């Protein structure tokens, strides 16, 4: 009989091993799924995991997909460390795109160097504004931020749809639900010729370093961690919980808004009703897969971006529905939560019948 026995101390090894085990189990379960669907396994494996890594262009696409995931996940991880459950990064991402994009469209006549920084600033402020709402409701009325931030996401989606159908739509666009294309001065510089890789990737890596220092070396980072694992000890130490909630939300809002602006000013180049394949939600998986640690999140972001690209490739090569990406990401989170048990428990074999 298999049973679980509590460990005296949480296993450090398993802290690292659990995500790897979860990943292996996901691949295994995925292959079983493909086998049941009658898809040739070698071809499926190649489409999913090899093809997206096979050329410079494919690798650059990995960077394009991973950058927003890593940015948002890093920002979310700060709040999650502090027990602030912001589920609404998707909405903050969209508001960033709306506000930054609106700047590009408003200054459509002007082509100047300052347009892009202005867009970034507006995007960050937009994301912060959207994040400030659940922060205010939580700190003033103790409203559950999981619900408020999640619901605001749907409002953001509809707001974007309203705007691109109305005030921000292309005047020469024959009532298509899209804005004008941003001109060159309102588009992100490409850092690798011939690809779509934009400055979002280096910004994400910079953010990783900044947050790492913040969490490991500053009083603020220390306060965030204490508030997450022992809130009463935080109060005793003199950390103000409300301030930490505000910081977590505003920081994440700014970063998610910036990521949203990068997406429309980068790969997309205009405002559309659907600008995100769910980056804000997928980033939650990335944050946990990466153990809420900046470096872990980089790897997790790459793995999850790979599964997105793999899903697209599988759609083209194998005629599988795009939902296969969601299935993979769902299984990954599922197995991760399951293997987390191994951190605090060990699996032991016990002869049956020795205990009632």
């Amino acid at each position: 009989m298999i049973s679980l026995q509590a460990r005296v101390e949480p296993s450090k090894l398993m802290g690292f091993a659990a995500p790897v085990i979860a990943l292996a189990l996901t691949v295994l379960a995925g292959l079983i799924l493909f086998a049941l669907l009658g898809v040739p396994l070698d071809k499926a494996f190649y489409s999913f995991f090899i093809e997206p890594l096979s050329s410079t262009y494919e690798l650059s696409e990995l960077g394009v997909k991973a950058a927003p995931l890593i940015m948002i996940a890093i920002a979310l991880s700060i709040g999650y460390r502090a027990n602030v459950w912001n589920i609404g990064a998707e909405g903050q991402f969209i508001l960033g795109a709306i506000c930054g994009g609106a700047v590009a469209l408003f200054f459509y006549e002007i082509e100047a160097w300052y347009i892009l920084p202005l867009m970034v600033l507006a995007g960050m402020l937009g994301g912060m504004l959207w994040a400030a709402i659940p922060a205010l409701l939580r700190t003033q009325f103790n409203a559950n931020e999981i619900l408020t931030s999640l619901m605001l996401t749907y409002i953001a989606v509809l707001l974007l749809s309203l705007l691109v159908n109305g005030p921000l739509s292309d005047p020469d666009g024959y009532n298509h639900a899209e804005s004008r294309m941003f001109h060159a001065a309102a588009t992100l510089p490409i850092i690798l010729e011939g690809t779509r890789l934009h400055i979002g990737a280096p910004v994400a890596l910079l953010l990783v370093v900044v947050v790492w220092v913040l969490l490991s070396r500053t009083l603020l980072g220390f306060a965030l961690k204490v508030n997450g694992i022992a809130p009463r000890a935080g109060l005793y130490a003199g950390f103000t919980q409300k301030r930490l909630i505000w910081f977590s939300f505003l920081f994440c809002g700014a970063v998610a808004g910036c990521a949203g602006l990068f997406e429309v000013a980068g790969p997309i180049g205009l405002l559309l009703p659907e600008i995100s394949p769910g980056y804000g939600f997928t980033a939650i998986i990335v944050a946990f897969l990466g153990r809420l640690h900046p470096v872990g999140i980089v790897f997790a972001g790459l793995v999850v971006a790979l599964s997105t690209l793999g899903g697209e490739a599988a759609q083209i090569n194998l005629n599988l529905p795009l939902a296969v990406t969601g299935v993979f990401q769902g299984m990954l989170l599922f197995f991760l939560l399951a293997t987390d048990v191994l951190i605090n428990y060990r699996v032991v074999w016990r002869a049956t019948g020795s205990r009632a």
Partner: protein
Amino acid sequence: MAMRGITKAYPGCLANDAIDLKLEAGQIHALLGENGAGKSTLVKILYGLLQADSGSIEWCGKPVTIGSPASARELGIALVFQHFSLFESLSVLENISLGMAVAANRRLEDKIIEVSSRYGLPLDPSRQVYTLSVGERQRIEIVRCLLQSPKLLIMDEPTSVLTPQEVSDLFVTLRRLAAEGVAILYISHKLNEIKALCSEATILRGGKRVASAIPDEQSTRSLAALMMGDEIEVPERESRTPSNKVMLQLDNVSLPATELHGVPLTDINLSLHAGEIVGIAGVAGNGQDELMQVISGEVRLLNEHALQIDGKPAGALSPGERRIQGLCTVPEERLGHASVPAMTLSDNVFLTAHNRTGLLTGGLINKTKTNRFAQKVIEQFNVQCNGRRSMASSLSGGNLQKFIVGREIEQQPSVFVVSQPTWGVDAGAAAAIRKSLQAMANAGTAVLVVSQDLDELMLISDRIAALCAGQLSSVYLTTDMTVQHLGLLMGGASISEEATA
């Protein structure tokens, strides 16, 4: 009832090692031991909450297996827990009927009244539990057990929450039960109680049965030696002459209850002088937590002048700002309040020490300085651990408490306020902590100790007061005070009332 060779191992420790225990009808038997000696484990096995790894239990001469608390109750074993399991918003009657899985009706109500009057446990079945004192709540638990007419009654540290008067009432009840033939297993580490009540004692130490004794034939000192292993150096009473300088002043501090069933603080006045130890006695749940939060700054006061540190208004300051002013505090709860369980000792030093000791340089945590500070606390206060990288949760209660108290003392506060400094701490650590409090006061620090342990307060404090239902009594010189007087104060009476009565 007899238990033979009971052994129970947890991962990392052997909680019970081949323990034998024998009880006869009508006997009050003491189970004596330090915290962590294995008393609770043994009782849980007897009550069916845990299964022994090996060993056997005999009941009325027949071997039995006790698989669950329900089967224990069927045999006639009843247990009064240290922590009550009562629903605050239900009535006494409803709580008792819940435990017995029968509907609350007239017959049960009559039975409750009958049992409670027969054993001198006055109880009104229709009262809501949250309106009752701790002593009254304990009566509910006892009556609940007695309704099942048990043959064996187990009491797990029943007096830790009672005033001295309530304790003597409880003893009368227990003696009557024993006279009627009920066997009582009485668990405690308070030696004078055991000497007063029990006819036989089994002493546990480190999971082993070290001795059986007749408490009457032993002195408190020899019992303590059996319980703790070797003789320990106990602090002596010291006399001090405190200065006239008031370091901490509370003026008419009132605070409405912050949560449901919380205790409001009413008009608390207190002056704490440099170089003295003031003790605040009181049964748990009479506003100690609230008072500590007001003093530490976790709860701010609207009137900043109501609390003054060294003559400066501080009622609106945060805990960090108060530390800079010289006020360091230690809350009651060690894990999760005074320390972060899942952080290292170094990080736990940084938690409170960064305000006063410059552990931040240029906005960044100075790891070298923090580690040095942690190392100093560990060495100065003889904290047994695997170095400063150990998790706070991996330390034993006594060692963690030494570490926490040490962390605050090393910051050299001018006012030091500590709650339950030795609660659940082994005797050696308790002695060390008390000595360091005395040393601080001798060096001129103003020390305030909030404690439920009357012996401790009588030993170390220069002046003493009691907290009852959120109100603080006048402060008396400890030398003018007896435990009986203090007990009355804890019950809410003032000395003058008692004198006229």
